[in-house]
């Protein structure tokens, strides 16, 4: 088998890499370390040597900084994580939260009753003073509901329909018409079915291959007779054009143009003027 020199180099490189990795990982020097790498091993051993005096000179400053930031040392190590609140604290905070929620609900109910005029006289007056609820004399005539626009309470607070359990439902303003959202697309009326006009032919889009034209020929208007172009009109009839009655009058209410009228041709029917 031939001896390939590069295979030997690869093996040596792999062994050397393993030795280098071992030198970097720990202080123990491999026994089969190549002689050329021994100086490097000595350098690494010196880098791992014990600390000298100047490398420990900043300890006083570091301890002072530690006392300022961390605080007084505790002799007993905590068994539970610092950031987790205690069970008692969590219970207390839950109770406080529940109590606060109950108070808020109660106040809300009182305010609702005040606006509905359901509080007794003195309380209603106090509510009127504090939160601006309807005064006592208005509270004695509760609203009967309904949608009459004429029923009005105070100028500031319109009448509202009050339900038995105290909640109120604000009535919409009689002149308020909610506008549909711009993105709303109204659906067509179910009884309406748009049908195409019999004479309407939709035009194809220019990017689309145009469809062949329909073969139907629109019927001409009964009162309209298409005139041939003058180039196709016989010469003897050309001077009669100006005496033909057009569908849309050319001249205004002014005097007629001068010129001797020429006799009408008998071969062409005269157009009937439209009403």
């Amino acid at each position, binding site marked *: 088998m031939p001896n390939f020199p590069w295979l030997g180099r690869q093996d040596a490189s792999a062994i*050397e*890499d393993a030795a*280098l*990795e071992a*030198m*970097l*990982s720990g202080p123990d020097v491999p026994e089969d370390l190549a002689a*050329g*790498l*021994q*100086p*490097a091993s*000595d*350098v*690494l*051993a*010196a*880098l*791992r*040597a*014990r*600390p*000298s*005096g*100047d*490398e*420990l*000179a*900043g*300890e006083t*400053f*570091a*301890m002072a*900084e*530690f*006392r300022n*930031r*961390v*605080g*007084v*040392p*505790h002799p007993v*190590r*905590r068994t539970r994580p*610092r950031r987790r609140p205690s069970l008692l604290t969590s219970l207390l905070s839950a109770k406080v939260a529940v109590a606060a929620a109950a108070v808020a609900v109660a106040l809300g109910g009182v305010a609702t009753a005040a606006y509905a005029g359901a509080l007794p006289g003195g309380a209603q007056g106090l509510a009127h003073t504090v939160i601006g609820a309807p005064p006592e004399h208005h509270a004695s005539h509760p609203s009967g509901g309904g949608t009459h626009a004429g029923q009005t309470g105070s100028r500031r607070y319109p009448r509202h329909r009050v339900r038995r359990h105290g909640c109120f439902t604000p009535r919409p303003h009689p002149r308020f018409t909610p506008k549909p959202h711009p993105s709303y697309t109204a659906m067509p009326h179910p009884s309406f079915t748009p049908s195409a006009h019999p004479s309407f032919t939709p035009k194809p889009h220019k990017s689309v291959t145009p469809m062949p034209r329909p073969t139907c020929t629109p019927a001409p208007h009964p009162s309209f007779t298409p005139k041939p172009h003058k180039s196709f009109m016989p010469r003897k009839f050309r001077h009669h054009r100006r005496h033909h009655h057009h569908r849309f009058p050319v001249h205004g209410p002014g005097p007629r143009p001068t010129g001797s009228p020429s006799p009408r041709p008998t071969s062409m029917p005269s157009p009937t003027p439209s009403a």
Partner: protein
Amino acid sequence: MIGEGFAAVLAAAQDGSEAAFAQLWRDTNPALVRYLRVIAGEAAEDIASDTWVRTLRGLSGFRGDEQAWRAWVFTICRHLVIDERRRDIRKPAVPLSEVPPAALPPSADASDEALERISTRAAMAMVAELPPLQAEVILLRVVAGLDTEAVARLVGRSPGAVRVAAHRGLRRLAQIAAEAGVTL
């Protein structure tokens, strides 16, 4: 490295134990200073102090093992180095071999240092001669004790690129050390 007792030490430090924090500091700061002396040069001590200030801000919220702790601290440190480079004109790290011996602080244990083939300062000076990425990768692997994946996330390269940079750096380091006259 603290080892298996790291979790207890960390928890005690987060609860406010000065002794526990001191243990964390003594275990991490020397590696931090060695890394900064090669990467940041003269601003090593200042950046190390700022690193601990920022570490203390987030100490109570940190969660992880010792590897994650070191990766977190060195990430803060590296960001401060980048900020420092943006603020000032970049000053290349002066090799310690060029620093007069009188300017170097004396080592705590001279006898132990004599037994070592190469001093830590000389080793750091040799590492500083490497290309920046190779030097940083070797320091983070050897001094900080981070694995290849953590180093790759920190420097923003792939693990394969980090591995190649580290191996090339070691081969070059061997040449530098041989040229400097390091013998067995």
